């Protein structure tokens, strides 16, 4: 369990914080708040009741604190006592965070107040206590009781973090602040009070074993996503076994535990909501999703008040030929559990439900050993785990260590059968030894079963086998020597050379520096939206997209090799138009090369027959010598499809219709006659909507939409007169009806 926390933030709101520094786009205060809000929203996001936050404003116009009668504590306001922060607290607080008109207010006094808040809140209980002070150090400070404060902070084990808003960029580029108009103190090198305060605060932080840094550093660190640490729990505690201890006295058993080594960290999940019905009713039915979104943007609720949950309502249906639509609703109460075996329903009574469960007992049983170089790494099927000896069992640790070292020395992996709990399905896992100076364990990955392997065949890549069985080594699909040579050099040039902290090259993958983009993007966006409800979401931070492109220096360095490679590779993009077009009028032939078309010609299929429609439509169009023939074929095909719709019992013929339409669309696109298809589709839509094809056929229209059988637009064919927007509108307008 995570510890309870109490953090008090002290934010300097003095007048000097309201100015912008140099070419920075935001004021010092806004800049400081980037850090503070990030911390606060990070805590809020955990949703923990035991993570308390307090907030003190320093150098405020007003004074409001427990010691406000004391002049030393003037211009300090306690905005919030220590408590769990929720959205309303954030909203309330963000209104108060504005620069004041004063520069008065003592940072040391604010720290004293914070200490007191923590003492009262935490009493003597176990807490993680923390004070974060952000200031530009331009206020007066009374240092009389510093040593006592230091003592108290250390005594109560409070972590003091002081972030200093540095006035000037690093020393080397210093200069501009001399003639900063806000200052008007040109005769001095630097605001002497600020320098003095900086020294005081730094030594205070250091004396308390706290941390001191510039805001610049702190904000820069925000770019690095924080990885949540997860408590480790064993997913299996049992025995690594060799042989059967129930039957053989020679069986070997080592008590072991299994933990995740990798496990997917999930991004926060969203729930579905809709606008409250009373609000939704007042909204016009939007014409497209774009306007719907615009409407939503306008009425963007600052809170979730205008929303209501979406619930899923399940209805249960069985096929019934007599019912309208071919389906009938049944009550959940009348249903039993079962399984599908092919298309047969197998009913299993409630008491027998685990009859199909294989009886197993928990164990990690060794099947045998393999050579590590005879294993193909791509067979890893899962996340990985580690296996260690039962903790606090030295004998087990010793035994497992001998196993790990034996595997390592022999360059072997072990194959084992793992059942994590009684009656759980067995899995086959691969165990590899891992030996580090201070840690030994087995690494485990799941292996595929016979059923998990799909044997798709592909031709070899280093030679070409022709249909006649000849082996060819020079072919347009094979690289020649020039290409091989250029590739070799390019691969060498693009070698990633990572270095460790000492600048020494390392041969590891940059896993530690790569962060889940979606997880952190979503997380950052939620927190940003919570603090700034009306601002657009900023783009993802650079850290998240660091690995989306090769490193710039590497690209520049290997530019000559790449150019050479491109030159000899001779890769040509197929223009999108040509993709669809029948490139040759030559039709496909069987293996023997026989000209079947000639035979087809003899047969003279005058009319497309409804029961062989697709082949005959294709053949007619392929042999058409003029546009009239194609038009006629489309006309016949349309009639056949409409007939199929009209006579469809429920959705019985719908798949057949979509196949016919898909064929028509494909062929007419290929023969560059998009208008013929578009005309057909427009007529079909009208007939469907007017229920002229045997009643309510809206479900068919929906299927057509889902199957992407809409109008052929300009992006797909140059000959089309339909724009992409029109095509989109054509399909969606009807769905709303």
């Amino acid at each position, binding site marked *: 369990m995570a510890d309870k926390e109490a953090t008090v933030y002290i934010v300097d709101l003095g007048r000097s914080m309201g100015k912008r520094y140099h070419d920075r786009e935001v004021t010092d205060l806004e800049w400081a708040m980037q850090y503070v809000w990030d911390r606060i929203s990070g805590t809020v996001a955990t949703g923990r009741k035991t993570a308390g936050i307090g907030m003190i404003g320093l150098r405020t116009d007003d004074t409001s604190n427990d010691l406000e009668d004391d002049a030393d504590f003037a211009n300090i306001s306690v905005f919030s006592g220590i408590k769990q922060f929720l959205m309303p607290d954030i909203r309330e607080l963000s209104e108060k965070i504005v620069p004041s008109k004063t520069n008065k207010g003592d940072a040391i006094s604010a720290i004293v107040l914070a200490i007191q808040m923590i003492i009262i809140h935490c009493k003597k209980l176990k807490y993680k206590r923390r004070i974060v002070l952000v200031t530009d150090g331009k206020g007066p400070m009374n240092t009389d009781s510093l040593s006592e404060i230091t003592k108290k902070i250390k005594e109560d084990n409070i972590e003091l973090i002081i972030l200093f808003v540095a006035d000037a960029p690093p020393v080397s580029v210093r200069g501009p602040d001399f003639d900063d108009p806000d200052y008007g103190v040109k005769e001095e090198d630097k605001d002497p009070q600020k320098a003095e305060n900086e020294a005081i605060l730094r030594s205070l932080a250091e004396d308390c074993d706290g941390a001191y840094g510039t805001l610049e550093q702190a904000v820069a660190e925000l770019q690095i996503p924080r990885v949540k640490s997860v408590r480790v729990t064993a997913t299996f505690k049992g025995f690594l076994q060799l042989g059967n201890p129930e039957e053989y006295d020679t069986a070997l058993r080592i008590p072991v535990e299994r933990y995740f080594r990798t496990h997917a960290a999930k991004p926060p999940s969203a729930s579905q909501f809709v606008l409250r019905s009373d609000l939704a009713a007042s909204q016009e039915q939007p014409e497209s999703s774009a306007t719907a979104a615009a409407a939503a943007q306008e009425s963007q609720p600052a809170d979730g008040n205008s929303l209501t949950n979406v619930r899923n309502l399940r209805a249960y249906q069985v096929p019934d030929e007599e019912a309208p639509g071919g389906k009938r609703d049944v009550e959940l109460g009348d249903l039993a559990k079962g399984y599908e075996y092919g298309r047969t329903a197998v009913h299993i009574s409630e008491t027998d439900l685990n009859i199909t469960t294989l009886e197993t007992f928990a164990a990690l049983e060794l099947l045998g050993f393999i050579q590590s170089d005879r294993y193909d790494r791509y067979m890893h099927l899962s996340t990985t785990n580690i296996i260690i000896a039962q903790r606090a069992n030295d004998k087990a640790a010793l035994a497992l260590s001998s196993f790990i070292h034996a595997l390592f020395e022999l360059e072997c992996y072990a194959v084992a059968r793992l059942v994590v709990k009684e009656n759980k399905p067995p899995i086959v896992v691969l165990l590899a030894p891992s030996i580090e100076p201070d840690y030994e364990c087995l690494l485990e990955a799941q292996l595929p079963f016979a059923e998990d392997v799909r044997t798709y065949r592909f031709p070899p890549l280093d030679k070409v086998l022709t249909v006649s069985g000849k082996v060819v080594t020079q072919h347009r699909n094979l690289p020649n020597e020039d290409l091989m040579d250029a590739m070799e050099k390019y691969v060498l040039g693009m*070698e990633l050379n990572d270095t460790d902290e000492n600048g020494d090259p390392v041969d590891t993958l940059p896993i530690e520096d790569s962060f889940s983009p979606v997880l952190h993007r979503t997380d950052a966006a939620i927190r940003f939206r919570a603090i700034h409800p009306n601002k657009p979401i900023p783009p993802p931070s650079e850290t998240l997209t660091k690995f989306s*492109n090769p490193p710039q220096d590497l690209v520049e360095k290997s530019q000559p090799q790449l150019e050479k490679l491109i030159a000899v590779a001779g890769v040509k993009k197929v223009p999108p138009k040509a993709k669809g077009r029948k490139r040759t009028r030559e039709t496909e032939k069987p293996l023997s090369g026989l000209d079947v078309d000639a035979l087809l010609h003899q047969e003279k299929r005058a009319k497309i027959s409804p029961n062989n429609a697709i082949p005959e439509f294709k053949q007619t169009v392929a042999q058409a010598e003029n546009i009239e023939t194609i038009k006629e074929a489309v006309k016949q095909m349309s009639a056949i499809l409409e007939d199929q719709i009209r006579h469809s019992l429920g959705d019985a013929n719908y798949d057949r219709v979509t196949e016919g339409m898909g064929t028509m669309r494909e062929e007419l696109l290929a023969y560059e006659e998009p208008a013929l298809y578009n005309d057909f589709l427009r007529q079909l839509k009208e007939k469907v909507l007017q229920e002229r094809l045997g009643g309510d056929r809206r479900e068919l229209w929906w299927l057509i939409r889902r199957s992407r059988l809409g109008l052929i637009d300009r992006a797909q064919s140059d000959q089309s007169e339909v724009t992409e927007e029109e095509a989109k509108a054509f399909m969606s307008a009807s769905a709303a009806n």
Partner: protein
Amino acid sequence: MADSNPPRDDEVGEEEEEEIDESNYKTVKDAVLFAIEVSDSMLVPRPSADPKKPVEESPVTAALRCAYHLMQQRIISNPQDMMGVLLYGTQASKFYDEDEGSRGDLSYPNCYLFTDLDIPSAQEVKDLRALVEDEGKARDILVPAEKQVSMANVLFCANQIFTSKAPNFLSRRLFIVTDNDSPHTQDKALRSAATVRAKDLYDLGVTIELFPISQPEHEFDSSKFYDDIIYKTSPNDPDAPAYLQPDSKASTATGDGISLLNTLLSSVNSRSVPRRTHFSNMPLELGPNLKISVSGYILFRRQAPARNCYVWLGGEKPEIVKGVTTQIADDTARTVEKWEIRKAYKFGGDQVVFTPEEQKELKNFGDPVIRIIGFKPASALPFWANMKHPYFIYPSEEDYVGSTRVFSALHQTLLRQKKIALVWFIPRRAANPVLGAMMAGEEKVDENGVQKYPPGMWIMPLPYADDVRQNPETTLNVAPEPLIDQMRVIVQQLQLPKACYEPLKYPNPSLQWHYRILQALALDEDLPEKPEDKTVPKYRQIDKRAGDYVLSWADELEKQYATIAVEKPASSTLVKRGAKNRAPEDEESSKPAKKVKVEADNNIEEEVRRHYQKNNLSRLTVNILKDFLTSHGRSGVGKKADLIDRVEQFLESG
């Protein structure tokens, strides 16, 4: 919107990948129709070469048995896919409601549609098995017609079955099993009619796969007739390899030697699954301005039993119930349209809302791509850095001409230089970007020269820093050399065949058992007693080969442990280990042949057994019972009474 068609993904969510070909209007399903010729020569039993199974089997029976195996297998592996069996050349005819008894002319004389093309039902499985095994029934149906059946008619019959039963399927295949390489030698008209009907099938998108059977005296010659019937590639897959693959030699089963059924089975098996792309024509970016196109496939993926479903028992037979979800607003229960739905996140006791556009933008990290970031030595990829199954990629010339040669050059270079590529990989629009290690895989072939693993590249998704868990703390106890030496001998004794892992040798026991039971229930068979489980270790062999070495290792362990136990006084206050340290070491070392156990708490075992014999298990504490049960792989959850029950059950059966 009520939708019943799409995959049942209400639980898996959008992340879970379905194999959808986004560019296509067809449904990603496969239909296989077996067309088996029934003729005198096909009905002659042939001797089996397998001395263990000296059963004579005719090609027809072998083909039917093959279809039966495939049917059972596909119910498990492809529950959505269809299968049918058409016999041709039979005296009898049957086509839907037509048979010899019908009035009028038969549409397809001498064609007998034994199993209609559909997702198999239990009854159909049963009927097919009966045909394979039951002589009586076979005698009625498997009677050859007097004259040669028209192949044009057979092909059109298949055409009609595919057109009406498997409309809009992405993959439709006709498996022809025959030993007749020239059905219409004399009749030119019938021959050309057949080629026209074959072209129809081709245009319909049906692939014909031929399983030729050579006759004892006569090698099957496809050039006589079938080369006019069969087209080079599947119309749906322009990149399919040349039709004639090395395995075709395996299927020319002559009567001498090779067992017919086995060759047929392996040949059918290898083509039993249609090749499905996971993504097609994806750009693979080797560097700025150098793109080629590749297609992706999933060659390893965990197959799990289908979830249980609701069954309606109110009708004549149990009926599978389809669930339809409607979304309603919580406040007024009105039906909600998709466009109305907003996504919101819980934050600080409130909801943080995004518009659908913003929501989309959050997931948008660019278009689908595989982009090479740079190269690393293959050894840089740690064993543990893995998240899920790999993706297999293979070049396609569809978008970029020249892709194949560049891919081949990269493939060969990575193999030669022993390198992997680090890639930024977005498999689909709006899919989570993956950082992957791309490695070249060599082609692997089996003993018969048939491809086992194809040549190509594999992309293995790497964990992000967020996905890496920390190792739990533990104390390090490095084994001394003598102990390792002993263990090394054990490991050397127990190498798997060829020292490699062969997945095909290990069917998933729980999956097989699940369907075995369902099959028994569905077909009203007796429930099987004991599952066949290939993943259970071969205990006898382990004992025989390594038993003695294990014992001597155990001795060494005791010796070594005794030394460290002395070094580390038991007075350590960090860990409570009273019971464990008092483990009866002397007892074990004096009798080395006793059970080899490392857990050092033998006393629990004995105590429980003692109490069991005295019938007063209830006097033991819950903890002891729990430890006893877990040490035997049994669940240790539940109340004390349950635990006692389980202990008794265990000790009774032992």
